[in-house]
Structures are given as C-alpha cells and as structure tokens.
C-alpha cells in the first residue's frame, strides 16, 4: 500500500468541482451513452435512501421499544437487553446485507428487515437501560399515589428516559442510514449507487455520493437531536447542568 502522491491543490479542487457538476448537471456515464447524475437522479436516490432508512427505523422502534419498556419497567431481562446491544454491534453490516440479498433475495422488504435488524439492538438496550435507571423513588411515589402501571410507564418512566432512549434511536439511525448506502447490493438504488458503481459514475460520482451521504447522515442526526431536545422536559435539562 504505497502512499499516493501528495495531492496537488489544483487536482484536488478540480475533483470537487467535478463532483459539484455531477450533482447539479450530471455527466456522461463512464460506460458511455446515457447521462448520469444531475439533480433529478440525486433527488430520486436520496429520497429512496431516506425512505428505506425511516422505514427500517420505524420497524426497529416498533419492535424494540415495547420490549425495552416492558423489561425496563419490570426490571427484568437485563442480561437479554444488554447482550442484544453488544451482539448487535458485532454484526458485520456488509455480510448482513449481502446474505439477506443472496439467501432471501433482493427487494425493499428484505432490505428493510436487514436494516431493522441493525437498528433493534441499540434501541432495545437503551430503552431498557433508560427505563430501568429512572429513579425508583419517583416510580414508588407514583405507585403509592395510585398511578396504574401503564400510567407509570407513560407519565413517569418514559418522559424521564427520553434522553437515553433517543440516544439509542440516534445510534440506530446512524447505523441504518450508513448501511442503506450499500443497499444497491440488495437491489435498492440509494445514493450509495454513486459510490459503489464507480465504473458507471466515475470518480466525480463517487465523491459526490460520498458528500451527499455524509450530508444526509448529518442532517438525520441533527433532526433527531432536535427532536430529542424538544421531547426532553425542561426539568431534566436543569438536572444535567
């Protein structure tokens, strides 16, 4: 792995210029003939990536959060909930997507399932941890005042666990949106297509894809951080400082 020659500023800038042009005007495919890139394709692929990401995130939340809430409220199954998070991190995203595609077939549903699998562990673990770490005194007081068990979860534990739970959702979202980049391997064209299919889009397309994916991930993270901030009670923000 010899080091590449130090980049010339001009060449460096020109590649970014090419990427910029690729996004806004498109260019001829390396394979010849058709025009690739341009705003319409960018929007199409970006929309797809957001779509699969949000779908998978929603599935992961719907599956993992109730389990985490239940276990956390009962203070049971810590081993299960925490091991799930540890195990989830060890799943090689590439192998998961490839195997899903190869063994079950390409397609939206399979992709969403595979991505949701990546999202479940952090949401499950963080929901469990967030709920079970809620000050037991608050829970005992709520119960002693005659709140029902679901009332305790809804009105006491959940609001207090928002920061931790949202931390899990954000980890899941980052992992899902990143992995959705290699979705073209599973037959769903996302922005990652620009990156993976260099033979079609060329280096300008690859760089453009990389920039767009990075921006999308940062925007998603920023949005979720804002949602978390809005959902967190002011009383908790005081507590932190």
């Amino acid at each position, binding site marked *: 792995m010899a080091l590449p020659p130090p980049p010339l500023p001009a060449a460096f800038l020109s590649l970014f210029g090419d990427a910029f042009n690729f996004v806004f005007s498109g260019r001829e495919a390396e394979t010849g003939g058709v025009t690739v890139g341009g705003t319409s394709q960018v929007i199409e692929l970006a929309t797809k990536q957001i779509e699969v990401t949000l779908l998978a995130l929603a599935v992961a939340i719907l599956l993992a959060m109730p389990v985490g809430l239940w276990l956390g409220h009962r203070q049971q199954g810590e081993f299960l909930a925490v091991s799930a998070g540890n195990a989830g991190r060890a*799943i090689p995203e590439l192998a998961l997507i490839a195997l899903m595609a190869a063994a079950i077939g390409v397609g939206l549903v399979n992709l969403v399932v595979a991505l949701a699998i990546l999202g479940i562990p952090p949401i499950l673990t963080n929901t469990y941890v967030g709920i079970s770490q809620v000050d037991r005194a608050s829970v005992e007081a709520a119960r002693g005042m005659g709140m029902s068990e679901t009332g305790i979860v809804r009105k006491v534990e959940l609001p207090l666990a928002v920061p931790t739970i949202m931390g899990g959702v954000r980890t899941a979202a980052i992992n899902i949106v990143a992995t959705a*980049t*290699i979705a*073209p391997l599973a037959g769903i064209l996302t922005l990652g297509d620009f990156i993976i299919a260099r033979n079609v889009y060329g280096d300008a397309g690859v760089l453009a894809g990389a920039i767009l994916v990075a921006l999308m*991930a940062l925007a998603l993270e920023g949005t979720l951080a804002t949602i978390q901030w809005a959902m967190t009670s002011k009383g908790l923000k005081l507590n932190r400082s």
Partner: protein
Amino acid sequence: MIEQLAAVDQSFFTDRSSGNCIQDNKLFCPGWVVDNYDRYVDPTLQHLVLVGSAVAGGFLIAFGLAILAHRHRFLQTPFLAGTGILYTIPSISFFFLLLPITGRGSLTAIIALTAFNLQIIFRNITTGLRNVPPNVTEAARGIGLTRSQILWQVEIPLAMPEIIAGLRIATVSTVALATLAVFANGGGLGTEIVTGSNITFKTGIIVAGSIAVIMAIVFDGVLLLVGKLLAPWKRKQAIS
C-alpha cells in the same frame, strides 16, 4: 450494475469444486470451506491490521483530547461535537471523501475507521474521569500529589473500567465496519464478501461474516480480561 454483481463467476467455483452444493449455491457448503480455508488467511490478517490500527489510532487521539478536555472543561463541548460529526459520517462515505487526499487503499480505510472511533472512546474516557469521586481527588491533593500525579495515579486508574468499556464498544464496532474497507480497496474480510464481482455466494458471505463476528468476540473477551486486570478492585463487586 446489479446484474453485473449478481452474475456468478462460474470459473472461480469450478476450479475447486465441492459438488452440487456450490452449483446450487446452498446456504452453506462445508466442503467448500474445507477446500478453501487458506484464502481467508490474508483477508483476516488485513482485517486485524485495519482494526488494530484504527482502534489504536482512535485511542491515542481520543485519549489526548480527553485529557485536554479534562483540564480545560470548555473544550468538552467542541470536542464532543467534532468527534460526533466524524462518528455520524458513514464510514463508507468517509472513505471516498478522503479519495482526493489519500486515494484508495488501507490507509484511507484506517483513517475513516479511526475517525468513527474517536467519539466512542472520547466519551467513555471523559465520563470515566468525571465519575471519579471528588473526595478521592480531594484526598489525593490533600496528601500532596501534583495535578499530573493525580491524573495518572488516581483518576486514570479509577476511570479504567469505563475506558476499557469504550474500547470494547469501539473495537467490536470497528471489526464489523471494517468489512466495508473493501469498497476503498482497503482489503480485509469484506473482500471475501464482495468476491470479485460476486456477492451472491452464500457460503463465502457466511464464512467471512463469521470470521468477523468471531474476531469481534475474541477482541471483546480479551479487552474484558484486560479490564479486569487493570481494575482488580472491580472484580469482587462484579460477582456479587
């Protein structure tokens, strides 16, 4: 381009045939693994280098940042935000953002994986340092330890369980992520998942994926042991 990837490279398989299992692309062909285990040696070693360099690099940088932020509290927020951005940018995107600078190759992959690691390790080190009971550092100061003696002899040892926890998370995540290095021509086990132009050979995917998982588990176990050795006072608690 999907069709292109999906096309099974027949010559590659007939070379070292293990019968119909390969032709039919069954979920798992043990015979093929027995015949071909040697092809995983290099990718595994490359994978180890990728993970080892990225975690070591991430640790050194994050450690430096954490010490700085511990001394100067106002640095905490910008460091968290900065490492947070690096963490959020998907590695696969990072590889190619580096394209104009470092081109393709394992160095690019290592830089991107290092950038990913920083926040995980930074966060854990700062949490560990912050959680050192103030009365302990107060006592250390009281018996005449200097600031740097307090840091190295009291705070860092006491923060060790959290530091190791951060390293475990970073290492396990990096082992999984490093499979993507193949897209940056960085080698590693990903090369055996995206074999040439082929990603549909299930046995190959399973073997490469399993090696990655096993590697993650082994690293995790080793770090767990290291953590116990470095924080012997925690061992008794863990049992009860």
